[in-house]
């Protein structure tokens, strides 16, 4: 062994020169392969989720605990960002509407933007950043420190205990957080409206509720279930299958969880809008 190490040092210079300079062909080929392998493996992961989710035992205690950690602990972050979002959006929209003499439409316009699009997407992105990365890092670190193996020998199905509970929690907590965040966002908007005007609280909200339709609210909330599901699943996938041997796995898992979950939020959003227009025609 010592000899080999010494030889390695001796050969250090020659080795560098032998690496082919133009290897872009190889890289693109392997990236292509890797992409499809990844898609296949996340599909299998998703199928496994459904298979294990319907099968007992049901980890009710852990589900409750995760729902608390995932939902309740995100409340303050969602509240602050939503409030600012509503406030800023209102302040920014006012000049344009004023130009057309439609300043009285301000509450309705802001409400529709927040409820239909901005609220769900922004809150989902924040959720991906906080919860998606948290799940990714947690499971990755459990994976490298053999905690997942330890559960398996403790008569526990780790997939059921860790993945199923987290994905279900994320799926049901995000919609609740979005409803909560939308409400706070509207409060922010109310405050902003009253910086320059004078609209009573009840007038502000009755104006909004009169013009909001079922089809403004329902699809917007419905899609957040899919956002939550995707964020939970991608977070778990990156953590659960984190590669044990490599360096910085935990950071990498957290990072890819956020990146891919955020990307998925936009992809789902785009699909949702397509489906919605199909229905409306």
């Amino acid at each position, binding site marked *: 062994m010592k000899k080999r190490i010494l030889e390695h040092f001796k050969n250090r210079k020659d080795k560098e020169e032998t690496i082919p300079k133009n290897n872009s062909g190889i890289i693109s080929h392997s990236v292509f392969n890797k992409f499809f392998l990844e898609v296949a493996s996340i599909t299998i992961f998703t199928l496994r989720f459904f298979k294990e989710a319907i099968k007992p035992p049901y980890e009710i205690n852990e589900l409750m605990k995760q729902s608390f950690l995932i939902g309740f602990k995100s409340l303050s972050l969602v509240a602050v960002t939503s409030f600012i979002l509503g406030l800023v959006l209102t302040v920014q929209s006012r000049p344009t509407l004023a130009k057309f003499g439609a300043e009285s439409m301000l509450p309705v316009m802001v409400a529709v933007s927040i409820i239909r699009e901005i609220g769900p997407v922004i809150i989902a992105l924040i959720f991906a950043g906080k919860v998606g990365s948290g799940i990714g890092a947690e499971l990755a*670190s*459990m994976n490298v*420190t*053999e*905690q997942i*193996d330890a559960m398996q*020998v*403790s*008569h*526990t199905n780790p997939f059921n205990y860790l993945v199923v509970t987290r994905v279900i929690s994320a799926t049901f907590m995000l919609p609740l957080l979005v409803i909560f965040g939308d409400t706070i966002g509207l409060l922010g908007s109310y405050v902003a409206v009253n910086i320059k005007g004078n609209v009573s609280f009840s007038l502000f909200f009755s104006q909004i509720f009169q013009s909001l339709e079922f089809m403004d609210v329902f699809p917007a909330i419905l899609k957040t279930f899919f956002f939550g599901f995707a964020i939970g699943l991608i977070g778990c996938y990156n953590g659960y299958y984190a590669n044990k041997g490599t360096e910085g796995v935990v950071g990498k898992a957290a990072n890819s969880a956020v990146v891919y979950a955020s990307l998925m939020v936009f992809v789902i959003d785009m699909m949702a809008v397509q489906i919605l227009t199909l229905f409306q025609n």
Partner: protein
Amino acid sequence: MTNIKTSIKTEKSSNPNGEIVVEMEHLKKSFENNNVLLDINLVLNKKENLVILGKSGTGKSVLIKCIVGLVEHDEGKLKLFGQSISELKEKELTNLRRKIGFLFQSGALYDSMTVRENLEFPLKRQLISISKKEINTLVEEALENVGLSDTIELSPSELSGGMRKRLGLARTLILKPEIMLYDEPTTGLDPITSKEISKLIIEVQEKYNTSSIIITHDIECAKLTANRMIVIKDGICAAEGLYKDLESSSDKWVKSFFE
């Protein structure tokens, strides 16, 4: 380095009347191109402490992970309590696993739980009908065994390396398993604590009739606990025997472990 090519067939005769609890024949395991275990033959008798020696990276941890099914072996026979595990259904295997305790090399403590919850976890998972009071007694007893009574409300991250190791040991012993697999139980401990752990291993063996496989680099621990020893090299069992046989082995490489 001398080469010992032939794999030694383990003696079943060392315990003629006793049962065999673990039996491996021609066990093989590789990870992609990395052939870790080539031909492992091994027998663990009831109420026996079997110590496994071998250089870092020879696959000792992989070997005992095969026993609990955390790693699936590629070829060969692996019998637990006389049942071949590749023929068992998932459910039967889980039931067999209840009888096995596994001390992970890294401790594998649950970071998100306190010391108490770490110990409660296997209890609640496996003994569904156990009462709160019984759990408390068992937890306290287990902590006392490893000298960690006053850490019960701490989280594992607040413990030192050696304390984590001992907590891992307590968590494994709490269910009083029939087979114990210790992966380096004394690594990272001071000589005094090491000796206490070795004594604890013997005590467990005598009190609960436990059969154990002990992987260790700690020759003192091996000397104290071993009824029989096996040395693994290049994926095969290179030598087998009593402590005193191997210590005075004519093979230089085997002997070098004891220096």
